[in-house]
């Protein structure tokens, strides 16, 4: 065996090193002292006296190093796709960029969670949080770079099994467990459908390598059934509308940082994978029309239904869940037609959506940490007491809604451009109409924060430095990504179509 092919998967190797270091450090450096602190409820002892507050710094620092090493494809536009293990692992320069986007998301989530993990009830298990997050990220890496259905399926499951543990992380809070149960049952159901779909495709072609399947796949009922089951399995992961029923409950029950992670990183990677796999496996002319029609209706239903449901939500986490579903509809718009422009738009959309959504979740999280409030009415008058947070939240919501100076406008613009050029003007029009609806419900929060009065507003507080760092990163993204056009052009260098 040629061991040099491991060099082709440098991102995975470097992430694996990070995981091992974090895992071992958690095992050996945070010993008894930590557990004793946790049992003493941390009341008598201050957080710094209790050792492993620094344990939050190690994973973040390692992830920053890992991200910087693998930030961009080294060879620039001269990069060619590489593969390892006979084509099981396939890597294009575009995937490096997507992985960097996911890395940034993970770093922001870790920064947000630092203070929360230092609370007495979580301190004993904060190492688990980092390990689980990194393992899901590793699964997403494998899924993104897969060239074979076994690799793809293992990556998908590695991304969703530890995710369940993260959702049920608050062991003594019932909502968390209920959310975990709903997530795991539907995730299992969707993987079973996906697996059945893959088995049908295997039955038609006799191989599981993406490239070979693409050569052999004919249009017949069996392969169409495989395609449908594949799309529905992935639809569960991205939470497109007929398959979205778990989303709101899981998002509401999960710890807020995990909700942020789930809504951005997990969903984003699945959307990109859906695009690459469907382009590679079902890229032929005959299938193009089939799945384009399927996505045409899925996108319309996703965006519309999610918007209508978002309007009536009173809990902000549920609200963000429906907002995330409708954003998923916009993301999938980039898949239409399978063009290179669509891929650029999709990745750019993910990047922008990541900054805006994680920014909003950072505000929700820090407010929840300090006041325990998450309802929309609780946010009445937030501007009076916490003007900076209210302002940042407003920027994020404007970006999510797509108001011009912010990055969200440009990402939506590019995705509509891609959809239009791929030949779906009607779809783009419906999505545009829905953007106006979404503006209404995003503004409901802004109205609550700025205009409505409240006798007992959330008391003023200072957020911790981790959350502040996360907010700074998100704000930089929201404000700069749209204006600095180099980002879009750079992504465009590496995109490819069918």
């Amino acid at each position: 065996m040629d061991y040099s092919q491991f060099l082709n998967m440098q991102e995975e190797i470097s992430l694996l090193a990070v995981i091992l270091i974090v895992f071992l450090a958690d095992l050996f450096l945070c010993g008894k002292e930590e557990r004793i602190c946790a049992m003493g409820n941390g009341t008598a002892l201050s957080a710094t006296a209790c050792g492993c507050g620094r344990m939050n710094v190690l994973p973040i620092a390692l992830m920053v190093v890992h991200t910087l090493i693998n930030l961009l494809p080294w060879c620039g536009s001269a990069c060619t796709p590489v593969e390892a293990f006979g084509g099981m692992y396939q890597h294009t320069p575009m995937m490096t960029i997507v992985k960097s986007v996911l890395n940034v998301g993970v770093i922001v989530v870790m920064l947000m969670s630092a203070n929360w993990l230092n609370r007495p009830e979580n301190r004993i298990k904060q190492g688990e949080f980092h390990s689980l997050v990194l393992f899901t990220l590793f699964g997403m890496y494998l899924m993104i770079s897969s060239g074979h259905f076994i690799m793809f399926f293992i990556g998908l499951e590695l991304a969703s099994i530890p995710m369940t543990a993260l959702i049920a992380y608050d062991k003594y809070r019932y909502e968390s467990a209920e959310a975990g149960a709903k997530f795991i049952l539907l995730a299992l159901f969707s993987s079973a459908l996906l697996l059945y779909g893959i088995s049908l495709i295997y039955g038609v072609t006799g191989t599981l390598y993406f490239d070979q399947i693409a050569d052999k796949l004919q249009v017949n009922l069996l392969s169409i059934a495989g395609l449908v089951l594949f799309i529905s399995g992935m639809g569960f992961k991205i939470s497109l509308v007929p398959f979205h029923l778990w989303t709101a409950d899981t998002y509401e029950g999960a710890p807020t940082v995990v909700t942020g992670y789930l809504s951005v990183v997990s969903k984003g990677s699945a959307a990109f994978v859906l695009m690459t796999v469907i382009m590679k496996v079902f890229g032929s002319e005959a299938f193009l029309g089939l799945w384009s029609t399927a996505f045409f209706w899925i996108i319309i239903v996703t965006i519309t239904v999610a918007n209508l449901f978002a309007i009536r939500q009173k809990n902000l986490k549920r609200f963000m869940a429906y907002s995330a579903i409708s954003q998923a509809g916009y993301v999938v718009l980039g898949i239409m037609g399978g063009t290179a422009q669509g891929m650029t738009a999709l990745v750019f959309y993910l990047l922008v959506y990541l900054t805006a959504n994680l920014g909003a979740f950072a505000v929700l999280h820090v407010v929840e940490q300090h006041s325990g409030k998450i309802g929309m009415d609780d946010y009445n008058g937030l501007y009076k007491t916490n003007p900076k947070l209210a302002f940042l939240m407003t920027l994020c919501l404007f970006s999510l809604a797509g108001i011009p100076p912010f990055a969200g406008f440009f990402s939506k613009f590019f995705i509509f451009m891609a959809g239009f050029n791929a030949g779906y003007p009607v779809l783009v029009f419906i999505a545009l109409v829905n953007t106006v609806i979404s503006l209404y419900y995003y503004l409901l929060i802004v109205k609550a924060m700025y205009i409505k009065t409240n006798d007992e507003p959330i008391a003023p507080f200072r957020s911790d430095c981790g959350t502040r760092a996360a907010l700074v990163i998100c704000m930089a993204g929201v404000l700069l990504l749209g204006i600095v056009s180099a980002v879009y052009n750079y992504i465009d260098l590496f995109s490819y179509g069918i």
Partner: protein
Amino acid sequence: MIQIEYILLISAVMMFAGIFGFLTRRSTLAVLLSIELMLNSADINFAVFNRMLYPDGHEGYFFALFAIAIAAAESAIAIAIMINIYRMLKNISVDKLQKMKW
């Protein structure tokens, strides 16, 4: 030799029995069992296609092996969550998991 249609028919029946059970059973454990049925029907498919149609490779068998291992891992974590819920509710009926809806 048994013809491939019969085995595929069995796996299809298993699949839809699993889906039916997933939608109708009230106990979470029964729901988990239904999901196992669905996963196993896909595994049967892989084995059958490999054995009957493409006997010169082993991809289908390997996929079935990996799928079984992954299904076991998922069931383990699902049952762990069920135990946690049982501790809080003393009940694991699906109907009780309704604190959050709409």
